């Protein structure tokens, strides 16, 4: 997993609630058996005016000029500002893969769907929850100031404007934070408890043999 510590990144706005994972990465791109290469198809149905399929040369497809991420001022954005319940719907991990493949390292929203939240953490995509009021203000900032950037400091758990005039604190589980800061392989961490897992399993098999057969 990619480490996350400090990010000073350009912010792009996605000003709609309940953005679902079907919108983030449409199903035709789920046929790939790889973890990479999804970036050009992030928000595919909104991003292009034609219908996309795997195997196309996406650089040659007609882009939708009205789609926010196609605007010149948001090219190279690493922080996505979003509305409530971002990432709802399907459990496809292709959603965080696509966001990261397109260069995003952090999404800031008032709330996230649970499965998307877990999937993102496992890939080093930091999800930050701020209040609706703070998010409203940030949407205003992004719209008003071309080139608007934010500094996300995971160690300090803060999101701040580059001039430090505003600093928002955010919460994160200490375990998740530890894994993100160190880019740790969670499987390796879990296997440190292999003896405990085996003991639990043996006990369970004795008590309820029909579950582990």
């Amino acid at each position, binding site marked *: 997993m990619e480490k996350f510590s400090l990010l000073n990144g350009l912010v792009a706005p996605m000003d*709609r*609630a*309940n953005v*679902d994972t*079907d*919108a983030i990465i*449409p*199903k*035709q791109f*789920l*046929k*790939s*058996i*790889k*973890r990479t290469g999804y970036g050009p198809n992030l928000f595919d*149905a909104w991003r292009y005016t034609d*219908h996309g399929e*795997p*195997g196309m040369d996406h650089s040659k497809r007609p882009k939708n000029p009205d789609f926010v991420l196609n605007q010149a001022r948001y090219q190279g954005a690493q922080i996505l500002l979003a*509305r*409530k*319940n971002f990432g*709802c*719907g*399907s*459990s*496809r*991990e292709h959603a*965080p893969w696509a966001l990261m493949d397109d260069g995003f390292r952090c999404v800031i929203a008032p*709330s996230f*769907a*649970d*499965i998307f939240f*877990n*999937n993102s953490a*496992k*890939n080093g995509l930091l999800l930050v929850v701020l209040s609706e009021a703070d998010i409203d203000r940030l949407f205003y900032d992004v719209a008003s100031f071309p080139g608007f950037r934010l500094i996300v400091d995971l160690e300090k758990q803060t999101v701040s404007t580059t001039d430090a005039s505003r600093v928002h604190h955010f919460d994160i*589980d*200490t*375990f*998740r934070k530890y894994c993100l800061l160190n880019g740790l*392989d*969670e*499987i390796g961490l*879990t*296997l440190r*408890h*292999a003896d*405990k*897992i085996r003991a*639990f*399993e043996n006990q*369970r098999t004795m008590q*309820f*043999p*029909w*579950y*582990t*057969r």
Partner: protein
Amino acid sequence: MGQTLYDKLWNSHVVHTEDDGTALLYIDRHLVHEVTSPQAYEGLKIAGRKPWRVSSVVATADHNTPTNDWHLGIAGITDPISRLQIETLDANMREYGAKVYFPFLDKRQGIVHVIGPENGATLPGMTVVCGDSHTSTHGAFACLAHGIGTSEVEHVLATQCLVQKKMQNMRVTIDGTLGRGVTAKDVVLAIIGRIGTAGGTGCAIEFAGSGIRGLSMEGRMTVCNMAIEAGARAGLVAVDETTIEYLKGRPFSPSGVEWEQAVAYWRTLVSDADAKFDREVTLRAEEIVPQVTWGTSPEMVMGIDGAVPDPDREKDAVRREGMERALAYMGLKPRTPIQDIRIDKVFIGSCTNSRIEDLRAAAAVAKGRRVAATIKVAMVVPGSGLVKAQAEKEGLDRIFREAGFDWREPGCSMCLAMNADRLEPGERCASTSNRNFEGRQGAGGRTHLVSPAMAAAAAVAGHFVDVRKLG
């Protein structure tokens, strides 16, 4: 203080807890399908790891599989990328193994959330995971079941555990008796309409009350299936006689003395009378009418006797814009009566509504009637080979065919249109699936979620009608 059903399931699976409450949860059953597993098996291989307990894995190919021309075999899958994904699952099963694998073309193949329960591979008291959000379905059996991502699939394969934080307890109580023609699908759509698509975020929702206890296991699965559409990763229904009766004699259900022991334990899988829930919501069964979604989120739902809402009457700006965007996408005008919405296609199937009871309900409406001439295609896709065989034994296939429906082979099909079954841009569909998101059933396609009986009624009429008035 008493424990909720969720508390009991959680407590009986915790292997280890970190200081911040993050826990390692032991996983009993791991359902695997072709779309979210290839990267997980690849990760396992790269790291040189082996699956922890192969007997936990029940696998099938369902998302990409075609629903016609099975006599052509694997060559019938014309999309080479779809075929590669199915062949990759075959290869992974050969290399790593499973408790049981129902490959494409097997007579027990089907949608992963249909085959688990019908084979008794989903049992009360289990933890069940799958790289698919509709894993919440299995909670109908009082097991802790939720969808996971591909990294978690790999994690469960390698460690038999999932890293989890405990969720909150939410209870949705439906008291009373459902009216004639009102089904489990209408119940869950009405719940989502009430609490919203984020209403259950961070929670496990237990569905309770006489309106839920009166449902069959099929109906309970429909309700739990869409818990995720209310934001909850897990839905739950307590064990009762209906649960136990359903499981008796299933291929992987315990038998003999073990059956008696299991049933004794399963009967404890109910919330204690004095258990505390963090959130409670109550609906009256009698007030629920057949539901139809009008927008691009399952919470955008209305009773069949209602009309498309008017965004001008919505005060919240973000919500208003969402409604306007949804109506533009759906090609609908505010205040249009739901019954005036004409449709092009009908899809009866998906992990929400493709079980035998669903097909019986749809067939009861279709019997002796004809699909309207304006309908381009009305397809019925059974949830599994076993459901299909049962339906054919009961003559339901003949009823559907005589009424002008397509009778297909099992799979996920047009619920998410990864195979060849899909909507064309602008086409409008009455669908028994679970998501009406933009493009879900095909780019530009317009989805209205309904029950199987309502879908069949719409197929016959060519537009939405109140199935209660069909007689």
